């Protein structure tokens, strides 16, 4: 008997759509028939049958409530409104048959009743949906901003940021692990939803079992489902978070494992646990090295750019996302010191300047010093000797100078000291005699003297 009860109960979601469909058909027909009212007989018949099926739906619904262990509180609205809908079907049937001559209902205009009816069926259906799919089901795909405006609780997704200064004093659980869970797990594993009866929003929830077994076993990440299921391939049915949800990074998953492996501590800092910095590297702010200063700048005037372009120089923004420019004399080997005045109107925007293989001389260095944001400058294959090169010291962004195949003189090497941001200098030149000069690597400047060779080896001539 219990089996039958459960089976019938489970048919409720199927049967319930019959009255819904009938009622909707009836309402649609009423719209068509609103003027002539010639089909009342048919429509009332439809409502009669809707009523029969609604009763059946009520019965199966009640059986489902009994058989599936819902609490009365969670189903009561749906239950009462379902019964009301069934009764309303008969009321509409009677109204259309004109069987209610003297009551209050007969005086109410039909259209009001129909609208009420529509509202009632919508409300009942929605309540039923909420029971099956959960209250957040409809709102879930909405963006967080709209969700919170609608009054839903939103689990804030927060980027985890560690810095060089604070990473060791950050608490592994509070500052890294829980935020990872918040960002990727809690939207389903929270008190409202509790998928798999698992709660991951607090320490207590994590330690408590889910519906199957504990999800975590201290020191044994491979026996902790919390970790192992995240590690499965996304295609795997058991993988968490499910395919389609935002996936945590490989590094984040690894850290969950590391946390479990290191005794599931809830209060120890990363430093106390003695973990390596490299584990957390992906949570440090990205220091993207770009070939232009990290300062916003306004775009250079278009007519200045056109003027430079028309002179035969090559000019382009370094990327679409910056206003800094790269200028190259690749197609203009005749570029000489006097041509520099072309660049004056775009001086602040120039970050990369390639004057390799041109007619420039040492006198140009003074002009180069007037390009405040110059980051990379290429002066290779010219007659530059390095005189005045110290003038470029005031360029705080200058990272790289290419002086290969120039007449750079050994006595000017020392002038390359003390540049604030200089990383590399290319001084490849077979003629440059660098004996006796020891360039002291100050800061992070490295000088590339080149002159590599690959001395012949015996094996070079063995033919197999």
């Amino acid at each position, binding site marked *: 008997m219990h089996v039958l009860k459960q089976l019938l109960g489970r048919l409720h979601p199927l049967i319930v759509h019959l009255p819904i469909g009938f009622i909707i058909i009836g309402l649609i027909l009423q719209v068509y028939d609103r003027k002539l009212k010639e089909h009342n007989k048919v429509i009332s018949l439809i409502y009669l049958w809707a009523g029969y099926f609604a009763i059946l739906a009520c019965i199966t619904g009640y059986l489902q409530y009994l058989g599936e262990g819902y609490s009365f509180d969670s189903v009561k609205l749906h239950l009462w409104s379902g019964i009301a809908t069934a009764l309303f079907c008969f009321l509409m049937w009677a109204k259309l048959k004109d069987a209610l001559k003297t009551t209050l209902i007969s005086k109410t205009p039909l259209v009001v009743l129909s609208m009420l009816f529509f509202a009632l069926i919508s409300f009942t259906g929605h309540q039923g949906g909420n029971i099956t799919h959960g209250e957040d089901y409809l709102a879930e795909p909405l963006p967080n901003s709209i969700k919170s405006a609608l009054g839903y609780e939103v689990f804030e997704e927060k980027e985890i940021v560690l810095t060089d200064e604070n990473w060791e004093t950050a608490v592994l659980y509070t500052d890294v692990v829980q935020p990872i869970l918040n960002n990727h797990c809690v939207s389903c594993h929270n008190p409202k939803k509790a998928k798999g009866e698992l709660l991951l929003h607090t320490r207590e929830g994590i330690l408590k079992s889910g519906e199957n077994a504990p999800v975590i076993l201290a020191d044994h990440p491979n026996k902790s489902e919390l970790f192992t299921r995240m590690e499965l391939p996304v295609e795997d049915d058991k993988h968490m978070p499910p395919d389609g949800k935002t996936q945590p990074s490989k590094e984040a998953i690894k850290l969950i494992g590391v946390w479990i492996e290191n005794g599931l501590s809830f209060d120890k800092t990363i430093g106390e646990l003695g973990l390596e910095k490299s584990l957390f590297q992906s949570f440090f702010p990205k220091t*993207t*090295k*770009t*070939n*232009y200063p990290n300062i916003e700048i306004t775009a250079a005037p278009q007519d200045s750019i056109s003027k430079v372009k028309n002179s035969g120089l*090559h000019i*382009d*923004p*370094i*990327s*679409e*996302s*910056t206003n800094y420019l790269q200028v*190259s004399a*690749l*197609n203009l080997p005749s570029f000489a010191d006097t041509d520099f005045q072309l660049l004056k109107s775009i001086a602040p925007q120039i970050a990369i300047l390639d004057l390799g293989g041109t007619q420039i001389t040492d006198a140009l260095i003074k002009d180069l010093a007037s390009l405040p944001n110059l980051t990379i400058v*290429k002066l*290779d294959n010219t007659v530059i000797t390095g005189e005045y090169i110290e003038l470029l010291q005031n360029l705080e962004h200058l990272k*790289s100078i*290419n002086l*290969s*195949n120039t007449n750079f003189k050994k006595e000017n090497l020392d002038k390359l000291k003390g540049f604030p941001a200089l990383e*590399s200098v*290319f001084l*490849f030149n*077979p003629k440059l005699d660098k004996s006796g000069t020891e360039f002291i690597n100050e800061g992070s400047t490295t000088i*590339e*003297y*080149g*002159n*590599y*060779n*690959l001395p012949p*080896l015996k*094996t*070079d001539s*063995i*033919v*197999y």
Partner: protein
Amino acid sequence: MKNNIENLIAEKLKREIETQTRRHFIKQCATGMGGLALGSIFMGCDPLSPSKNNNNLHTGFTERDLNPLATLSPPFAPKVKNVIYLHMAGAPSQLEMFDYKPELAKLNNQECPQSLLEGKKFAFIRGTPKLLGPQATFKQEGESGNWVSDNLPHFKKVVDEVAFLKAVHTDQFNHGPAQLFMHTGSPRLGRPSIGSWVTYGLGSENQNLPGFVVLTSGGKAPSAGKSVWGSGFLPSVYQGVQCRSKGDPVLYIEDPDGISRDLKKNTIKAINEINKKEYSKYADPEILARINQYEMAYRMQIAVPEVMNINNEPDHIKEMYGVEPGKESFANNCLLARKLVEDGVRFVQLFDWGWDAHGTDASTAVDLGLKNKCREIDRPMSALLLDLKQRGLLEDTLVVWGGEFGRTPMQENREGKTMGFKGRDHHGDAFTMWMAGGGIKKGASHGQTDAIGFSGVDGRVSVHDVHATILHLLGFDHEQFTYDFQGRPFRLTDVEGEVIHEILA
């Protein structure tokens, strides 16, 4: 009389208009608008029109209309400007070069377990083959301690410059489709090559040289033919220009006998005069593009032979590469690659043929012919890295090395027979590639194969991942970099590919 007819026509039109109601208007709007929409859904047949719709290239009259190789900025800050891609056509054996498998040496000559063979397809292996131990000795080299075999003694010195991908995989096991896949992102014909994508996306800085140059060595062109540097559905101006390292670099570029340079100049000037008049009449940008092309061809006649001439290089450089002037060699091509990149050529593609070490004869044996091939590339590719480095070019350039797939840990048994020479069959499950240059983490090694080098067990990367990484370094998001064709946007990486951050600095 005339007036009469005009009156009649006017009257008829008026009648017609009178019968037209608001409903007619709306009804016709529906079909008319629908038709308009349909037009944009199906797009025109004009191959250039989608490029105008592309987000990079604005509608109307752009610099690109006049000069399809005009430069464009990449969407994101690039790490490199140029690419040199060294492709070892035929697929080099990773097991004799980079992927050291001591366990495989122990299992030498033992039968390959069935479990490895199940469900696998091989080009030539039949039945149960025997495992073949590494036919080279390996050492850990440089500060990075990455493994290199003594087939590459010079390369050991530059090993700290490169980042290895030890577990690349492909789904193709025949040369043609695999090469197409490696260079166009699809094993079937019709897609543009990486070089074409890059020149389409970035243009070419040098106005006197092609933006995408292809150099071949080893005696044969790659099996997949010229499609590996073809432009597919991109305008053909973006296809690779094959330059010969022997004889005229580009065929028919020299003036015919009896035509002097001055005469040529005057001819082009005259033609362009006429074209300019034509343009002032019709204002068709195609005419301007043509004028540009003539002028570029004229400039190329001087610039190409100049850049392709390696004789003017100093002796110590020639020695470092081990060049053989006047011959077609990988060494010459490496030196040319540096010269081309130095002159602002966007994408230089080198193909070296002869790596298909099946062991059918001595020249394809992994312990004989393969060693010769290794020797042929060892010095030049090492020299290329050093030369780029000393000139500061390695900061702007990405060097990629690889084949179309790898080779089996089993000895090939063609037709199920034991063969006289030691060879390995095609194998796409795991092979090694390396990259060096701007934005690459020096000395890195990503991915690992199993004990015998059959499959990747960690850090497997696909051909699409390699492409995504190359585009990333050039300043593109491979998912956004598209070209509209046949009604949908196409990507180099199709619907796959992830940037391999593990080898990025």
